[in-house]
């Protein structure tokens, strides 16, 4: 992140497809020519020496490499690890080039042979001496090892080479004066020469920086650290900075920069929020009172620092692997950088803003009138779209949706049933129905929902049509039985929703009846009496009768509208109450198990918490068998849950039975007293056949409350029958256990009795309409009755339409128990 760019003064590209690393560039002056030369050695073994000369702005920018800038290019046939410039030859005070190869150290002299003209100048590299190394070299540093003892010594510089495994070779010119290995070093790190104590600063691979005494000639002992400082990360580079009176060591780590004095004490450190790649220290001539250094980062920024403050940040084009500060053509403080792929650049700090790539926006000039027209058009479209009836919610819609259902003549030849939850050897029969949707106008988001009652299931149960035109849409839906429960109803509700938010629903009817229920195996038989017009239902369960009786009535009345039904028997209370008892018991059991699970899981959590505390404790203590307890509790919970599942399934089953039975009771009540349709609806809501076990409030509570209310108000014998008396005493308790089932049963019985005596639910005048069994004027005249029950009898008075029996595809089973209590009203 920088505000300004570093300005490029000179640049060139050294070689193609060659790589460079730290150490591959040096800037120096080799002869009388004071212009600094840049020496670059690549990993491919090519040494290049440049003489940077600034070109005018006017000259062609596209050419970056000028032939005359390159003084020398020579392949040395072995990869160059590091280049160093210094006074490495005893006989000369000129600077020489030391080049470190992987197995060899060579010192060259650069000589110039002047020609007649400027172009005639020739540069040559002359080998001065070379040392073969028996270990692979890692890096090197120069320094006046052994101290500047005499005047002459000031001018000489020795070379110290470090091998990859941490062995130091010190070369005094042509002589190898010392070989020492650093103890405990596996991988070499950066090194640097400290002039004051004639020591080497070495960062070892384990991340701490150590200072090793390396007395040039006399040392015979092992190399021991003078002091060491732990920086806790691996060092990238070490440099020395000379301030007024002291040397300080700067060490660039991967995430921090450390500045130590030469006794190994931390002066300051600096944490980076970027990834540094390289750094260099430099001194200025005047006002030399701080440590100055430049850090190059992988985010292509140069940070110029003074002590621990950032003074300037400049953006560069390439990630630098090495920086050099030099004086070129008399310009001091030129920053010379080398990138990984050989881009050599000389920068100075300028105030060019960083040209960040702004996102392009279509900058073509807009014709205002055109744009306005376009905008108008678009806005009109948007407006239209917003008002489009097919898109947006519309309150008054006259779209009409018609659903027609086409029943197949017979069931599928192959069962399409899927996901059946009971075992049966026979394939479950299935029925595929064609559903056709027809709409009077185009609608959108049409969704067809098929809802059927639990044991029956439909597939697909939700069909999405997207949009629909006037042409009809057809689809197929398959029905089959999923659970082995007694079906409560064969009604299917088809609901179509579309974007007018109106719901149209039509009920399609389809049916499949047999004498034996699929799955449950409940048997029902319908017998028609030969002598009297009675039907007689027999079954081993009250619930099973419901569907058959319902359909019988329906079909009989459809064939002959003048048919009349009657039921003269007492209602089958005992069987009904049995089912209620069973249902109630199961509910209580469920609740009990729930409570136990609650207790167990509380215990489980408590144990967990104590165990956690024990584990967190500093001093480990015994577990006190808590683990065993934990496991046992877990098993208990799982067992309880399994049990619960089982009970719940049973409860579900029982609820269905209860629902069936309630419907049957209601039906019987209705036909026995010839109830009006309004009354029937009320009855169905009071003694509701909807049994829902998922709520807190169960069927018993609901029915109890509504019964109490009904008995107190509409069916009340007192004079205040018309008034609505709030059912204050009704137990609205949510708890299952608070309901008294015997009371409930009594209430049901009382309720039914009163109804049978002719009390009406709708009319406030609850005068006994005992005799009034005919003529619901607004109804289809259907009189005559069917009577049924577990031990029941059906009477059929008027039209002996026995052939109706044939319509029921059934397996009539032999009656289990014969009852002779035919109601001989005929």
């Amino acid at each position, binding site marked *: *992140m*920088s*505000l300004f760019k570093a300005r490029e003064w000179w640049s060139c590209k050294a070689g193609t497809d060659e790589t460079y690393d730290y150490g591959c560039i040096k800037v120096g002056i080799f002869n009388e020519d004071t212009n600094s030369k840049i020496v670059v050695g690549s990993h491919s073994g090519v040494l290049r020496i440049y003489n940077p000369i600034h070109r005018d702005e006017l000259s062609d920018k596209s050419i970056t490499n000028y032939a005359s800038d390159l003084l020398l290019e020579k392949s040395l046939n072995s990869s160059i690890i590091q280049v160093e410039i210094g006074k490495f030859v005893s006989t000369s005070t000129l600077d020489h080039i030391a080049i470190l190869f992987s197995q060899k150290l060579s010192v060259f002299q650069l000589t110039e042979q002047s020609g007649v003209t400027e172009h005639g100048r020739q540069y040559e590299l002359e080998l001065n001496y070379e040392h073969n190394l028996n270990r692979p070299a890692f890096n090197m540093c120069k320094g006046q090892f052994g101290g500047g003892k005499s005047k002459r010594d000031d001018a000489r510089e020795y070379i110290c080479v470090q091998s990859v495994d941490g062995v130091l070779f010190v070369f005094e010119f042509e002589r190898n004066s010392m070989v020492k290995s650093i103890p*405990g*070093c*596996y*991988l070499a790190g950066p090194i640097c020469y400290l002039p004051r104590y004639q020591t080497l600063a070495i960062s*070892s*691979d*384990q*991340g*701490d920086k150590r200072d090793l005494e390396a007395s040039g000639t006399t040392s015979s002992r092992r190399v021991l650290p003078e002091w060491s400082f*732990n920086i*806790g990360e*691996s060092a990238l580079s070490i440099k020395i900075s000379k301030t007024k009176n002291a040397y300080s060591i700067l060490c660039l780590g*991967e*995430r*921090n920069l450390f500045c130590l004095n030469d006794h190994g004490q*931390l002066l*300051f*450190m*600096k*944490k980076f*929020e970027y990834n540094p790649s390289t750094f260099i220290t430099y001194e200025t001539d005047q006002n030399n009172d701080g440590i100055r250094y430049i850090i190059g980062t992988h985010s292509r920024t140069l940070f110029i620092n003074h*002590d*621990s*403050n*950032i003074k300037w*940040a400049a*953006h560069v084009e390439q990630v630098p692997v090495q920086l050099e500060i030099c004086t070129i053509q008399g310009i001091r403080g030129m920053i010379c950088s080398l990138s990984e792929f050989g881009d050599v650049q000389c920068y100075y700090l300028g105030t060019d*803003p*960083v040209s*960040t*790539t*702004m*996102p*392009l*926006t279509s900058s073509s000039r807009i014709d205002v009138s055109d744009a306005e027209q376009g905008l108008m058009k678009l*806005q009109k479209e*948007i407006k239209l779209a917003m008002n489009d009836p097919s898109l947006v919610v519309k309150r008054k819609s006259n779209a009409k949706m018609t659903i027609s259902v086409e029943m197949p003549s017979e069931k599928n030849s192959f069962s399409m049933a899927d996901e059946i939850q009971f075992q049966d050897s026979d394939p479950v029969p299935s029925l595929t129905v064609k559903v056709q949707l027809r709409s009077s106008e185009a609608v959108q988001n049409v969704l067809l929902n098929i809802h059927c009652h639990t044991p029956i299931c439909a597939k697909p149960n939700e069909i999405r049509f997207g949009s629909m035109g006037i042409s009809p849409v057809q689809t197929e839906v398959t029905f089959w039985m999923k659970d082995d429960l007694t079906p409560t109803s064969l009604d299917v509700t088809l609901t179509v929703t579309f974007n007018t938010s109106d719901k149209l629903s039509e009920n399609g009817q389809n049916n499949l009846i047999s004498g034996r229920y699929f799955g449950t195996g409940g048997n029902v038989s319908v017998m028609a009496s030969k002598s009297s017009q009675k039907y007689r239902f027999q079954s081993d369960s009250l619930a099973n009768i419901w569907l058959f009786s319902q359909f019988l009535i329906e079909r009989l009345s459809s064939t002959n509208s003048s048919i009349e039904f009657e039921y003269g028997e007492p209602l089958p209370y005992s069987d009904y109450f049995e089912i209620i008892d069973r249902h109630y018991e199961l509910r209580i059991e469920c609740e009990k198990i729930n409570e136990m699970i609650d207790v167990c899981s509380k215990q489980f959590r408590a144990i967990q918490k104590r165990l956690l505390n024990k584990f*967190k404790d500093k001093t480990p203590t015994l577990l006190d068998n808590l683990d065993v307890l934990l496991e046992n509790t877990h098993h208990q919970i799982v067992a309880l849950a399994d049990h619960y599942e089982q009970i719940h399934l049973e409860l579900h089953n029982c609820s269905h039975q209860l629902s069936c039975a309630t419907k049957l009771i209601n039906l019987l009540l209705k036909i026995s007293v010839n109830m009006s349709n309004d009354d029937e609806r009320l009855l169905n809501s009071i003694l509701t056949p909807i049994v829902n076990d998922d709520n807190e409030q169960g069927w018993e509570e609901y029915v109890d409350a509504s019964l109490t209310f009904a008995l107190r108000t509409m069916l009340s014998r007192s004079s205040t029958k018309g008034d609505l008396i709030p059912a204050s005493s009704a137990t609205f308790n949510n708890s299952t256990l608070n309901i008294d089932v015997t009371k409930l049963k009594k209430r049901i019985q009382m309720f039914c009795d009163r109804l049978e005596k002719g009390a009406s639910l709708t009319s406030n005048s609850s005068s006994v309409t005992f005799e009034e069994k005919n003529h619901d004027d607004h109804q289809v005249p259907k009189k005559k009755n069917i009577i049924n029950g577990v031990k029941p009898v059906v009477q059929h008075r008027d039209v002996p339409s026995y052939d109706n029996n044939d319509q029921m595809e059934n397996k009539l089973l032999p009656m289990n128990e014969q009852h002779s209590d035919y109601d001989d009203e005929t």
Partner: protein
Amino acid sequence: MRALTEQLYVDEVEAADDGLADLLDENAFANIPLPGTSMRQPTANPNATAGPTGPSPAMRPMTQSGRPITGMIRLNTQSTQGKSVENALKTARTSTAARPVTTSTGRFMRLGTASMLSSPDGPFIQVARLNFQKYAKSQALARPLFEHLFYHVNDIGSALQLARLANEATENKDWYWLVQLGKCYHRLGMFRDAEKNYLSALDIQPMVDIYLYISKVYTRLDQPLLAISKLTDGLTKFPQEPFLVQAMARIYEGLNDTINCMNQYRHVLKLDNTNVEAIACIAANYFYTDQPEISLKFYRRLLQIGCVNSAIFTNIGLCCFYSQQFDMVIACFLKALSCANEDIERSDIWFNIGEIALYTTEVNLAIQCFRLALVYNNDHAEAYNNLGLVELQRNNTDIGRAYLQTAQSLAPHMFEPQYNYAKSMHQQGDLQSSFRAIKSSLELYKNHADSKQIFDELTKMFAEL
């Protein structure tokens, strides 16, 4: 090995996402802390009786955890730092923010597995087969190995084992191993042990990182003041370190102490004037304290130093608008839209455009913009709120109410939809719902005058009944 580690290196100072499960532990001292000493009171300031020191929530939007929005997205700002588990669970589950953060370990585990997947030949080092005893003796091997275990393999248990052995080998003298032990304990959630190790490491060698680590521990232990005092200690040792100041600023921000926070961020900028976080935070603060011109300068600076993203352009656009430099507004938003890479960003940009359209009374445009915002991010509660208001104004009460209710359910931390709902209900005469909504609005923001007014009116009316 080091290269593999570097691939996945996350500065431990930055990376700490408080998990939901972390709320379950009882490390915090007081359940009902004194005001200003705990970070666990999300809306400490607006409800404080002493009067708010910073901008009120009416001016400055909140993040989903009920903290004033900050200038920069950090790992921690997103997390649910609710008061309690219940609150954390209650935060609306929207697709992006306020994901009910699972435990921190789970998150780090994912980092670890991701690294495993990337190496096709299986893990680089079979951790189970290592003999830590042997490696711990050799410092040169133990350190890279530890970092590999900690960052790459993400096997904190083994790393801890190695660190412990190495620490024994160095006889508690090496600060490096003490810090690493502390880091391991920190990750494992044993904050007291971590604190101990950090403190002894500080005794041996003070380092910037250690100060940051220990302040992190104290923050986790919900002792922000102690954390600040530690950081101040660190600053006396390293007076020029922007990181320490920045950490302090963040803590102050967490405490809703805006004044101190801004001072600290300014200090950061004095030390390092390219610090993006500091610039962004100061800019955001100026913006929300009604000085968009100054804020604009800071954002421009950010743009100049190379932060080019849609958020900056949006912010500049908004600043321009509020400082009445209308010529730039559209251009900025256009640029922001072309910069945006993610749907969330786009939805925010469209929301802001819609906001501007509202101020310029372009109701239709505003509706279109809010709808676009909802297209990109269907959980944009603010957009729902504004849409609701616009619809209410156009007398589409049903739709408006539905929008407001959606906003309420999406952002239980915002008082605006509650207040708006209450007001519209009040106008329509549904006093009961109005009362209910106004109560929850006041719960969220105690000193909201308009809410109070409606509340008083309603209570008076109810009392009369």
